[in-house]
């Protein structure tokens, strides 16, 4: 049965507000920050990640709403009809600068290697934008890096941490792993796991989501950081993760012709920025020295020796032909490697169907 067509309620029609003197319509439920983004405003944020529930921690996104005494956090406040909002007054900019100066007083590092993670430049970029020198508000430092956590994937450099809790929230809200949490309170809060242990002893699955949302590089991609000293610029190439059937979009990071890291694509239809431990960190096989570089065939004594492609292909073809002749078409079965590119996976099924006449074909990702 057809659904009756709903007439929009009057309040939906009247969803108009004013931003910096300009009228703008909005969808009920939209936050002021979301409206500001549509309007091309550059409201600064540090605790915001559009995949997560708005948190309201950094307070950089505050805006003035006419009729209210104090500014409100635009990321947590919904737009309402008739609301008049100012996103960039001198007072707001002054408070934002003070807030950034307070943050930087704890986190003095002016440069962070971009290989640390997708969001790792957020704080340094705001620093530059607001001309924060790091000279004000000197005082104690709260972060404590976990140098004892030697896991090969995630660097826990909490000296850079600004307690935005994006890592905690992404782990809970996106991954459902609840491996990381906030310990203590106030200036002494620390990002931690159960009983302050190592990641490997926690509920962590090393998916790397915390790394990719961290706005300071405090949580960082240890594998990518191995290439920090390489002089070439970082290039990103869009691809699809080869491991399983989900088809997560990734950006392959390279320096020169070397693959140095992998990043989940936020606009990937299948994963929207998510990855698992394999897709995120297990790429060393690509350039591994044990990888075959030439075909091998077995000699009469049964040991492998290098061979030309022609020789190897002839040997394989003869083997298939004999099996088909002796045992029929269903005696052959092809499994494509999940690590092979998609073109190869396509080719192997074509091959087995066309040459053997069987549909016995699969990919290890399906298992």
């Amino acid at each position, binding site marked *: 049965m057809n659904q009756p067509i709903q007439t929009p309620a009057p309040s939906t029609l009247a969803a108009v507000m004013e931003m910096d003197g300009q009228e703008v319509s909005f969808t009920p439920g939209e936050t002021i920050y979301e409206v500001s983004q549509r309007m091309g405003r550059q409201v600064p944020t*540090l605790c915001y990640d559009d995949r997560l529930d*708005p*948190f*309201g*921690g*950094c*307070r*950089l996104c*505050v805006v003035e709403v006419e009729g209210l005494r*104090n*500014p409100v*956090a635009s990321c*947590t*406040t*919904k737009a309402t009809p008739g609301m008049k909002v100012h996103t960039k007054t001198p*007072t707001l900019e*002054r*408070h934002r600068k*003070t*807030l950034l100066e*307070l*943050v930087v*007083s*704890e986190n003095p590092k002016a440069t962070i290697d971009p290989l640390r993670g997708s969001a790792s430049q957020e704080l340094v970029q705001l620093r530059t934008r607001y001309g924060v020198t790091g000279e*004000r*508000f*000197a*005082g*104690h430092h*709260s972060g404590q890096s976990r140098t004892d956590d030697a896991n090969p994937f995630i660097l826990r450099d909490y000296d850079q941490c*600004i*307690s935005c809790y994006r890592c905690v929230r992404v782990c*809970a809200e996106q991954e459902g792993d*609840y*491996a*990381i*949490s*906030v*310990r*203590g*309170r*106030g*200036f*002494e*809060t620390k990002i*931690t*796991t*159960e*009983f302050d242990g190592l990641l490997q002893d*926690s*509920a962590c699955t090393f998916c790397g989501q915390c790394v990719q949302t961290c706005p300071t590089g405090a949580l960082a991609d240890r594998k990518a950081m191995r290439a920090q000293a390489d002089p070439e610029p970082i290039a990103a190439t869009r691809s699809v993760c080869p491991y399983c059937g989900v088809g997560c979009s990734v950006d392959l990071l390279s320096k020169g012709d070397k693959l140095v890291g992998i990043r989940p694509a936020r606009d990937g239809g299948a994963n929207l920025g998510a990855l698992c431990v394999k897709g995120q960190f297990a790429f060393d096989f690509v350039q591994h020295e044990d990888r075959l570089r030439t075909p091998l065939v077995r000699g009469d004594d049964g040991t492998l020796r290098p061979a030309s492609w022609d020789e190897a292909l002839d040997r394989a073809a003869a083997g298939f032909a004999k099996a088909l002749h002796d045992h029929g078409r269903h005696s052959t079965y092809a499994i494509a490697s999940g690590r092979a590119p998609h073109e190869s996976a396509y080719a192997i099924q074509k091959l087995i169907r066309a040459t053997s006449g069987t549909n016995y074909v699969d990919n290890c990702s399906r298992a």
Partner: protein
Amino acid sequence: MPTPTDDELIQRWRSEPAPLLPLLHAFHDRDGHLTDDALRAVAKGLRMPLADLFGTVTFYHHFARTPPGQRAPRVCDGPVCRLRGCDALLRALPDATPMPCAGRCDAPIPVLRGAELLVGTTAGGAFGAQGDERGWPPPEAFLRLEPSPLPPPYPGAAGDGSGECVFAEIRTPGRATLAGYRATGGYEALTAARSPSEIIDVITQSGLAGRGGAGFPTGRKWQAVADAPGDPKTIVCNADEGEPGCFKDRALMDHDPHALIEGMAIAARATGATRGFIYLRYEYPDTMVILERAIAEAKTAGLLDGFALCVRRGAGAYVCGEETSLLNSLEGKHPFPRNRPPYPVTHGYEDKPTVVNNVETLCAVAPILRHGATWYRTLGLGDHAGTKVISLSGDVVRPGNYEVPIGLPLRTLLDEWAGGPGPGRSVQAVTMAGLSGGLLGAERLDVTLDEPCLRSHGSFLGAGGIMVFDDTRDMVAVAHEAMAFFAHESCGKCFPCRIGTQRLSERLSPGPGGSGPTELDPWTTEVVDIGDAMKATSACGLGTAAPLITDSLLKYFPEQVARHLAARKA
């Protein structure tokens, strides 16, 4: 009684409302601290992530994770107890650690040990000799159990209590029992046949407003909950009383528990709520016993039918007095304050419509219904409606809880009611709203005790704690301790407060913990900039109030600030 097993504790609590805190307390009381195994058992029993639970437990300063834990004494080193020798007591008691103001500023220094609240004294000068610990009598000799003091006799005009509302009957012997409460008119308001809208009308007309700090009109809050869709609705009594220098709610609950219970039951009837919680601060274990006994009495007498009321204890966190942090704490979540809107009236406990009211607010309800809206209104002076309990402490002759008509001159309270600062002394400053309203200097003691007047001077009445400092006190030291308190209690959710309270505290610190400029001008610029950002952008009232300390210090005591900086430079 055999020691309960993990399983028995979990079975006891897992199906109760708001089970996390009582379950953690059960383990904490049993073992003296919360072991890893206890946390594992609780996480499994309540099906919550272990990392979350671990983080949340570490939020509360009274949950110990290692021995001697709960069995070691915790001594109040709040602003008033510092004037009364808490340092000596801390040195004398083995394993003692400090805790923030424990809400007994009108009595000897409170000391928590095990599950008990004791008081310790510096009597006989035994603690007077700073630093020399040898030859002192065993510290035990100075600790004793002592019920909390009653409010002093009403010092107002007629001396017959006619100016009081919540304290009008509190001194009547036996008032804390059901029989005694009923003998003085108790539960008449609850049992009188009044419709929900009649109740809300009277409360609205009386002008009763929140006595927990924010002053929101109580009738409007109840109406909003009554109107809000969603069931079940909840009445939460905020008995967290964590503000330093505030101890009024404790007096009301200890000596007039049924007044609170009746107020909550009336609120439930007015709003259609079927469940209720009293969220009680950890430092009031005696009050817990009194409240549970009184609730049991009222239940047995059939006065709470259809209203499931229970007490939940906090575990040491001032911010849990902030209503949305309190709700998260009750729900067993990490007690960060929530983003508002939505407000608790529509999305409160378990996201259902909820009234959160202070103890004093709720205690005023039954008398108002019995005597009428006009009666209550006219208890105030001039245009001001009603009364406010002031917890007065520090350098005054008669500290204690005083129920004043709103609009009373501060001077009248200080000098006539409480006997002034003592012979040969003058008042140098008072705090307002506990610590949250900052300081008022000697030249500003001409204020009247009402929000319009106090706000016009950059302060506010809030929960009504006033601490008095005479002319011998170092006001920078007082301000530093106040800011260190806010830094200790900041939840860490928002940047301005998490870093701001810390930086301000460092700037006020005299010792090695200090940092920041040592010249007055750059010092002032930094302190003012931090304070302005905190006031404008903090996510809750803790962060917006804390800079009133530095603002008022600079306003009233610039020369003491200059001396502080000169000493730091030297």
